[in-house]
């Protein structure tokens, strides 16, 4: 079981001055599975994400990423862009961060930066237009086209990303993260602001990414229909600590979780549950 984990976070603690945003949190994500991280607002979910993706340096704890080939990366020792480059962890943002003035296609090309930099001989081969660079660029465009087709935006490839409708921007951001060929894809509220139909499309996209690319997914989500439909494993946080975990079904029926979401204590939650059923 433990050998199948792609990510194991142990005793993660994150303090901002006197505030403890995440306290002694341990969680794990399994390979080729979708793990959801849920919790009420301010529970510290995004802080955990920022630690995993290198935007924050955790105050304590370890985060181990195990690649398919058994290579282990300790995420807390890497910082900044190296998490994405070396550990192959890609992420999206709660408030979409595309490059609005660049086209959808260009956004996906930028995502393949590191591979293309090597192919362009650190720019020098590219500057003289070497054939090896040309073919690498064509492959990169094909890769971008593949993802644009997957998210149904091939027709809008040449439009500025900032001009796309909101739902399309969300999917484009996921496609951009996928273009970095990640081992672990971290999605911060991918369904936020989407309507029911778009949410359903998103669920289908995430399931197909898991099935076809074999990418492990870690997501924060408030939209319970999405969480319940696609996650294999759910971790619930409240006030910086883990309060429950398990399959969606188990978590849904956990009185602690309901109490956290209702803002009530456990006994009240049990009473609510009993009166409801």
């Amino acid at each position, binding site marked *: 079981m433990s050998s199948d984990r792609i990510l194991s976070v142990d005793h993660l603690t994150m303090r901002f001055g006197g505030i403890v945003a995440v306290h002694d949190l341990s969680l794990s994500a399994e390979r080729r599975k979708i793990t959801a991280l849920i919790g009420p607002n301010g529970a510290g979910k995004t802080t955990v994400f920022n630690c995993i993706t290198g935007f924050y340096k955790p105050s304590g704890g370890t985060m181990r990423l195990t690649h398919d080939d058994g290579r282990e990366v300790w995420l807390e020792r890497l910082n900044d862009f190296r998490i994405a480059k070396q550990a192959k962890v890609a992420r999206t943002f709660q408030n979409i961060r595309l490059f*609005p003035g660049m086209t959808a296609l260009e956004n996906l*090309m930028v995502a393949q*930066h590191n591979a293309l930099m090597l192919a362009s001989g650190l720019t020098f081969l*590219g500057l003289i237009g070497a054939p090896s660079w040309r073919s690498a660029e064509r492959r990169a465009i094909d890769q971008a086209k593949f993802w644009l087709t997957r998210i149904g935006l091939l027709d809008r490839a040449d439009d500025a990303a900032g001009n796309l409708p909101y739902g399309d921007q969300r999917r484009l951001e996921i496609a951009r993260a996928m273009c970095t060929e990640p081992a672990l894809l971290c999605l911060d509220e991918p369904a936020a602001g989407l309507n029911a139909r778009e949410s359903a499309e998103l669920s289908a996209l995430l399931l197909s990414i898991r099935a076809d690319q074999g990418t492990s997914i870690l997501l924060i989500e408030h939209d319970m229909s999405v969480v319940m439909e696609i996650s294999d494993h759910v971790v619930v946080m409240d006030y910086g600590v883990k309060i429950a975990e398990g399959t969606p079904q188990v978590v849904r029926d956990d009185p602690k979780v309901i109490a956290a979401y209702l803002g009530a204590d456990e006994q009240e939650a049990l009473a609510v549950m009993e009166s409801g059923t």
Partner: protein
Amino acid sequence: MAALAPAQTHASRAQGAAFILKKALISAFVALVLFSLMIGIRTEAGPSGQLIYWTRFGELAAMVVTVFGGSIIVELLRQWWGPVGTIRIVPPSVQKALAVARRAIAPLLLVFTFLVPVIFYDQRYILDLAILVLTYVMLGWGLNVVVGLAGLLDLGYVAFYAVGAYSYALLATNFGLSFWVCLPLAGILAAFWGMLLGFPVLRLRGDYLAIVTLAFGEIIRLVIINWQSLTGGPNGVSGIPRPTLFGIPLTPGDDGLAARLGIEFSPTHRIVFLFYLILAMALLTNWVTIRLRRLPIGRAWEALREDEVACRALGINTTTTKLTAFATGAMFGGLAGAFFATRQGFISPESFTFQESALVLAIVVLGGMGSQLGVALAALTMIGGFELFRGLDQYRMLVFGIAMVVLMIWRPRGLIGHRDPTVFLKRSHAISSDLVKEGHG
């Protein structure tokens, strides 16, 4: 607009015309009220001290008609240039013609530039001015990499210009190295200084970056002034060798180019040679920049301008990306500096003041950040236009200032504000300047 039915377009055009007419009438009325006293009635002290006055209704009418006509023209221009979605009153045929004209500007300008020495062979003044304009075009294109593409505000660009100029001047006068050996050396040294500046300032953003680069520009100038033993201090470096045509000097002597070709010597040969030299250097800058934009490094620069956090999340090393932008821009500045030194034959710290940095930055901003054609046009307007207004004497700065303010009101994102995608599948749509970010350091 194309999606609208013809009848609808027609209606909106009529509406637009009414709007323009109304605006023009209001302007004309305001002009009438204002000028009726200022121009309509002329008062003067009579010979015995009494007030005499007479009316000038003819002039007044001319003024009002001018305002009326002018305001229609201004409004039409604004609608033509204006953002997408405004009602366009200019008929499609005219629009199409203008679009064609716009596309033809760059090649026409290039052909004309090549022909300048032929057309103005006898006019030394124009040739000198053209060389000056081209120098600023090259500087503008160089700074465009840093400011326009990477979105890093650099107020000390003249430092690299100075480094390039002094590199050539000192290497040539002290070691007798030729221009063609020194040119790449000047570029490399300036790029090196660009990296050196880059390292400490890369964590700074926005205003802070601007201030540090400004300070760096001043530091270089002060070092040049005070390091007398090396740079000659305020006296500068003189006797800088003139460039040779791959070893053949452009002098009246027996081994000069004129003698070898068997033609009569003329000092204009050297000017023409310098003209084509800076033209070649500027075009090289342009070519490299256009090329770089389509390479991963160029896309990373633009992505950095758009959103630095997203870049990091995609595994782009923002530090080296910024450093390469700084170094590339600095290299072009250094090359232009070497050219400046060889053209002048004499350099002193006075040529490398903050004024120069500001001028080059103004060219980039005015031209439209990131647009190669825009920067070239802006350099032509700024440097050439400034010379054009020479006849206005003390009002020159005033006219120039007004022209810039008007231009910035009309085109807040520069002459050419839109962005062309670097790669496309079917059709390259220009991206409106509203979407393109300016960068924040």
